């Protein structure tokens, strides 16, 4: 439905996030267009997941604003942002453990995408199929291994019909074969014009999809631009080789 647009679909301005005395996000500005695929890298503890949570509305920033599709959503809870099309996955999977894989995804289709019963069935089955999970559709989510739980995060988020999908380390621990399946899946989402923000440690996977790369360190964006240029940036090299956050 959505056509490539030049104006920002998502904009975060002057985001600060403190947990007690700890400053986790320090004046982060981030803007992206609707049809972009943005990768985010950075050492552990850099604040990547926290940024994603602020964008998705899991908790509010200490200061700063988030806008989505031209409206200020800073005060909107995650439920409403999801319904607007801004959907995230969780780095540590959060399945609905007592429900089956299908039911997990069905919840997103019927509430996130707001679909009626039959459409929600179709959407849920479609996203399970895309993520290769039809075979475990009837398994209770608590019986799934970590790999399937991560897949489920993706399938569930997709069933909410996002216009912009925020992915948090869904590629960790994959074999080469699994990684290339994942890349294929994400490329399919790109064909469907879904915008992507993808936090990933495994850079070579990320670079197959991301057209733009951001590197975070110690709560700040230290580089932002074409992937190859960012990876070659001396600041980025120092952040990775220099032993992570200060």
């Amino acid at each position, binding site marked *: 439905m959505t056509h490539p647009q030049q104006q920002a679909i998502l904009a975060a301005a002057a985001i600060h996030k403190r947990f007690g005395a700890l400053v986790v996000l320090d004046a982060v500005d981030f803007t992206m267009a609707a049809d972009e695929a943005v990768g985010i890298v950075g050492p552990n503890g850099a604040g990547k997941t926290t940024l994603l949570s602020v964008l998705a509305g899991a908790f509010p920033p200490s200061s700063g604003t988030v806008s989505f599709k031209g409206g200020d959503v800073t005060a909107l809870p995650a439920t409403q942002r999801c319904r607007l099309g801004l959907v995230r996955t969780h780095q540590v999977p959060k399945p609905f453990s007592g429900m089956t894989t299908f039911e997990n995804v069905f919840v*997103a289709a019927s509430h996130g995408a707001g679909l009626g019963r039959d459409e929600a069935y179709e959407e849920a089955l479609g996203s399970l199929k895309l993520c290769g999970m039809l075979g475990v559709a009837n*398994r*209770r989510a608590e*019986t799934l291994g970590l790999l399937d739980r991560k897949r489920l995060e993706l399938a569930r988020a997709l069933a*909410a019909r996002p216009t912009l999908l925020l992915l948090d380390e869904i590629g960790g621990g994959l074999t080469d074969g699994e990684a290339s399946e994942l890349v294929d899946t994400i490329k399919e989402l790109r064909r469907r014009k879904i915008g992507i923000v993808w936090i990933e440690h495994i850079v070579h996977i990320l670079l197959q999809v991301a057209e733009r790369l951001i590197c975070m360190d110690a709560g700040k964006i230290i580089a932002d631009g074409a992937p190859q240029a960012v990876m070659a940036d001396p600041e980025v090299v120092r952040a990775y080789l220099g032993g992570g956050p200060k």
Partner: protein
Amino acid sequence: MSAPATMPVIERGTATSRTAAMAVAVIIALLAIAPQFLSAGAVDRMTALFIYVILAAMWNALAGFGGLVSVGQQVFFGLGAYFAIRLADAGLNPFLALFASGFVVGVVSIPLSLFMLRLRNGEFAIGMWVIAALTHLLVNLDRLVQGETGTSLISLNVYDAGTRRATIYWLALASMTALLAILFGLLRGSTGAAIRAIRDNEDAAASVGVRVTGTKRLLFVLAAFGIGIAGALWLATSITFQPKTYFNVQWTAYMIFMVLVGGIGTFEGAILGALVFFLIETWFGGTGVWYLVGLGATAVVFSLFLPRGLWGTIEERFGLRLLPVGYRVRLAAASADDDATPQQTTKHQEKA
């Protein structure tokens, strides 16, 4: 259903569950005519059973499906009886007052939910108990109730004992049937899926578009309404209203017992648990303190050896689902319409 043969099909029921639905209808019809064949004492006992089923089903919906564990549900039981007294005193027909009271309890639970649902887990559980204790004190202040002396639903006495007994029986049966039907419809629909999602992970539920607070409120109010009706019906069977009997935490303890023994989080489990509790009470209720010891011991044995309760275990062991609220995906659109669907997935081992 409309899908082509290669598309997976979503199944809600099974051949067994369709039979079960018919069996349920037959059982309810038989129960409806039963008073003609039962002794007065048996009619009273059956009325109590219906009330237990309501209590168990409501607590199970709240805790087993919604994750809202409360140890203060006696507040709604007590208020159900209290408002019935009040409404009857104001001149309402006593039988009508029973149901009007349920609605009042539901309405009262709405403002209560505004702050109670902000509490999480243990805070919510204990908070509800505190609310029950406070409400008990407030009701004691009502001059009509005369403190712990209590009062009676006197206006029921204008009916002769036989009419009264049969009417209350039918009202309890009808209430139980209606409340179970409402609950089943709710839990089986997409709201039911949202309720279970909230139970399993509130943050994740919000992240996929579930309205967490509104959904919890709906469940909270429905449980208050149902338990309020149960309290009012109990009043009708015993006529006298002593606050400490109705606002007693024992009611919630019974609810928890029934749900844990029957199988928390399964629709059938709560009903089975109520039946088990009813039988234990019928056989051992006269043995005083040993009865309570026995109940406690049974609960401990179940939590140690059958944590999923009777029905949860049966369901797991035999794949039996009589009143299923969940969804099954059938991959090969084979014509066989059976329970086990062993051919459906490669890795389907849940019930192995």
